[in-house]
């Protein structure tokens, strides 16, 4: 009866994107007299500011004003959880790139040129750069967290096999193509309008209000679309929203701040890098009997979102595997670097990759295929199905999903072919890996799991939907509009989604945790359903009949043999004083979470997936190429198949970039040196495999989600693991698959060469030793 929800409508803004008409913040027609701000950034990782001579900045051409911390009328603070995140450094700098002052000028280039003219005297303090150093010195932004189940210590001792080691996974810059930007316009009666490229308009509203001494109702944040977010515009758009508003408030005129790409790299946080120490026990079949892991995150200089990132890492250490006796520690290391923040996956990928590394090691230790070890450890359906944090896995499809992918990717045959290839190819080595994903969906903070929407029907029959989520390219507005069209039985072209606006739906959560469609789609469904109910009551009363029998489809409303076009019904309803608009609300059911004990049901459901990657590695140069990838991902019953496949492909490639080419490197003076696309390499079209096969796994959500779909933003990022472990497999072939290559991520040519050298040295040593003995 229903319109198929599986339609692959183009993105609601596609016609605007291709014509150049889509308006991003920097494209908004400017108010007369708009001024431009640029930031003066710290050159030291940790230092007291002894003096700051800004006279040359002030005297520079076209400069209007220079502001420092003392010019902020309200709070000099933009931390999302803990108040340790100054907007402008006040006497102390804690990383190279920390904003110290703002210069406002008549044009963008004048502001940028002036921003480097300050003469700052620093008194250097000891700097902590790495998570390992932070752990050694007990430097943490919040106290360490731990989760223990069973008797890991005892079970480890009793295990017939042990695997102990360390592992390191680097961070990742979001590299949204549209950099951070905010445009503030003072309004009457102390109002402040800020156009902001942000995933979290409500938080921007709060921060702007606090920093400019306003009530929330005096601040309006509008976000039509972002040129990418990926988590980098969840909390960290805050500093720029505040700077624009503070300057606009101070100068009583409109001020825009758009970060230059290098400044964006230097000033904003990234995905957390992780350092791990682990110890696991396992049996002959590779089944894990006990596991201990300690994860240390590079949080950077402030707390930002590190605690929930660490929590999600703890809750994803299990990935798709049952761990009966387990001990997980997570420490948020305070370092003198950018304050790391949300990035697609939010600690989940970092939590899960270490168990995949462990399993990869176990397989080589036992001389078995890693896939066999993975299967031996998968969560069960009726037993072995409770996560370390106490949630029962009720929707497990990993067995059938992996079985399907194993077959469609021809895994077994290709494994044999690759072995044969490597035996005859001394320099070029191929590798293959299949890695699974289980990813928990919902915010770990229960009360964030709520959303609102507004649906308006105008008297010409056109419909407008507005909700609290933000559009960053993921197709949220398209899906929400599809939901409204489906509920009211009208063509999608009748429904228009509009900019997120804090004066419409209020007190919203960030568009994050993959939850955008789950939350806002349900809220919009609820709003549309209320109007539909009013129409149905009206029709049932008018024509006589049962409300339940009133049908809404094909732009027509019918009951038994009578029908009326939707547009005519709207006019009639209006004339009969029926309310043609509604709000809608949704809160995710079944959730509970004890954040101190790390126990409960933090996730409404799980999304699953798996990927097979085949790579070729040049063992003389470390160069790597992904030859083929097969992805199978569970998006539930998709609302828009094309959009979901786009999310899967994009996330996979982004995950691959994180683990292969994207290298954040700080010099000994504490300066991030890979701070532009010239040195920081995100995947380009040529890095993607010629042979990429992507399929959605048919699996309507067990839980009552919007049209039984599943969240699809973050989970497929973990599919990129398969590339990393295929590289590791190729390297291992150099030592006949007998030694675990000490490969850290990202697997850059340099790291690949280091791993090859390390295992070659071990082989050489062994040969020499055995030679001496004989």
């Amino acid at each position, binding site marked *: 009866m229903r319109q198929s929800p599986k339609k692959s409508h183009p993105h609601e803004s596609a016609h605007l994107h*291709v*014509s150049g008409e889509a308006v991003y913040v920097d494209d908004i027609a400017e108010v007369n007299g708009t001024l431009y701000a640029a930031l003066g950034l710290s050159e030291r990782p940790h230092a007291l500011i002894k003096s700051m001579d800004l006279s040359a900045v002030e005297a520079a051409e076209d400069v209007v004003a220079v502001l420092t911390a003392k010019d902020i009328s309200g709070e000099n603070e933009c931390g999302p959880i803990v108040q340790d995140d100054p907007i402008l450094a006040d006497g102390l700098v804690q990383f190279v790139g920390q904003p110290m002052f703002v210069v406002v000028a008549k044009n963008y280039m004048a502001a940028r040129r002036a921003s480097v003219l300050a003469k700052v005297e620093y008194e250097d303090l000891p700097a902590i750069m790495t998570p390992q150093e932070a752990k050694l010195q007990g430097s943490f932004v919040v106290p360490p967290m731990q989760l223990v189940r069973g008797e890991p210590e005892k079970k480890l001792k009793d295990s017939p096999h042990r695997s102990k080691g360390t592992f390191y996974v680097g961070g990742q810059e979001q590299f949204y193509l549209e950099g951070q930007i905010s445009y503030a316009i003072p309004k009457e009666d102390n109002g402040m309008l800020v156009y902001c490229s942000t995933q979290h308009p409500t938080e921007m509203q709060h921060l702007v209000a606090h920093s400019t001494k306003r009530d929330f109702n005096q601040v309006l944040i509008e976000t039509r679309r972002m040129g990418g977010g990926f988590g980098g515009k969840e909390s960290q758009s805050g500093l720029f929203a505040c700077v624009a508003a503070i300057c606009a408030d101070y100068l009583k005129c409109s001020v825009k701040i758009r970060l230059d*790409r290098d400044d964006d790299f230097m000033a904003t946080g990234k995905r957390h890098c992780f350092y791990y120490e682990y110890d696991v026990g396992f049996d002959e079949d590779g089944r894990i009997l006990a596991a201990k892991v300690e994860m240390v995150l590079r949080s950077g200089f402030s707390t930002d979102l590190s605690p929930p990132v660490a929590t999600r890492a703890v809750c994803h250490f299990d990935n798709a595997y049952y761990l009966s006796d387990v001990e997980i520690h997570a420490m948020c290391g305070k370092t003198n670097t950018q304050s790391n923040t949300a990035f697609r996956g939010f600690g989940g990928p970092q939590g899960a990759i270490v168990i995949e590394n462990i399993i990869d090691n176990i397989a080589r230790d036992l001389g078995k295929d890693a896939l066999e070890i993975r299967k031996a450890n998968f969560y069960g359906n009726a037993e072995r199905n409770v996560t370390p944090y106490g949630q029962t896995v009720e929707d497990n499809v990993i067995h059938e999903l992996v079985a399907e992918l194993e077959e469609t990717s021809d895994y077994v045959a290709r494994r044999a072919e690759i072995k044969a290839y490597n035996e005859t190819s001394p320099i070029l080595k191929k590798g293959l890996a299949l890695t699974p994903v289980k990813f928990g969906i919902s915010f770990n903070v229960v009360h964030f799991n709520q959303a609102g929407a507004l649906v308006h029907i105008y008297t010409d029959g056109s419909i407008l939907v507005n909700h609290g989520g933000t559009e960053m390219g993921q*197709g949220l507005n398209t899906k929400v509009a599809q939901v409204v069209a489906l509920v009211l039985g009208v063509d999608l072209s009748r429904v228009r989604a509009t900019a997120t606006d804090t004066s419409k739906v209020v007190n919203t959560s960030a568009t994050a945790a993959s939850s955008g469609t789950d939350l806002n789609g349900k809220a919009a469904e609820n709003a549309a359903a209320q109007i539909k109910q009013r129409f149905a009551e009206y029709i049932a009363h008018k024509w006589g009949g049962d409300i339940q029998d009133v049908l809404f489809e094909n732009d027509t409303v019918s009951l038994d043999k009578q029908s009326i076009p939707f547009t005519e019904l709207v006019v009639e309803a209006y004339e009969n004083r029926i309310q043609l608009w509604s709000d809608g609300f949704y809160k995710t059911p079944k959730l509970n979470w004890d954040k101190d004990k790390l126990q409960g049901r933090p996730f409404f459901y799980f999304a699953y997936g798996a990927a097979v990657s085949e790579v070729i590695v040049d063992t003389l140069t470390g160069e790597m190429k992904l030859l083929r990838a097969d992805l199978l991902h569970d998006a539930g019953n998709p609302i828009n198949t094309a*959009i979901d496949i786009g999310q899967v492909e994009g996330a996979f*490639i982004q995950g691959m970039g994180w683990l292969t080419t994207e290298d954040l490197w700080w010099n000994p003076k504490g300066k991030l040196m890979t701070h532009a696309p010239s040195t920081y390499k995100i995947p380009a*079209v040529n890095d993607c495999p010629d042979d990429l096969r992507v399929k959605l796994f048919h699996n309507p959500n067990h839980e009552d989600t919007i049209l039984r779909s599943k969240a699809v933003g973050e989970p497929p990022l973990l599919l990129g693991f398969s590339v990393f472990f295929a590289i590791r497999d190729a390297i291992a072939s150099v030592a006949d698959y007998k030694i675990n290559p000490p490969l850290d991520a990202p697997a850059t040519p340099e790291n690949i060469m280091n791993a090859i050298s390390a295992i070659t040295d071990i082989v050489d040593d062994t040969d020499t030793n055995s030679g001496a003995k004989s």
Partner: protein
Amino acid sequence: MKKTAVSFTLNNEQVDVLVEPRELLIHTLREKLSLTGSHIGCETSHCGACTVDMDGISVKSCTILAVQANGSELMTVEGLASDDGLHAVQEGFMQEHGLQCGFCTPGMLMRSYRFLQENPNPTEEEIRVGLSGNLCRCTGYQNIVKSVQYAAEKLQAKEEG
């Protein structure tokens, strides 16, 4: 700073504009001529969001001085569509979902437009090489390649028809 008068053809219209000698073409296009379709992504010619067509070649307008464009023939994304409707590359990117956030799209379109004149019947590999100067952070490029293939077929059919 003293300004210089620059004249060029922009999307088939004659334009005269006063620019600083050091002014970048992308700033002239966006700020002085209000053509905001071309985007600023990195300002170092790596990302390609600012790609425009100048005298029959693709250029990154963030590293071309406005004065260099004097006397040239320029085309931006705003000039792609005609009275007949969208250009085949625009249609391709819409139909094949070659975009997500859309920020890289104008640059991708302008590069694709020129690339398909350089090579009207490209292989997939040639498309990947031809577009390698333009970055996209959302799509994984699969649908971008398909979009260009769609446009190539459409343009070929038009040629033959």
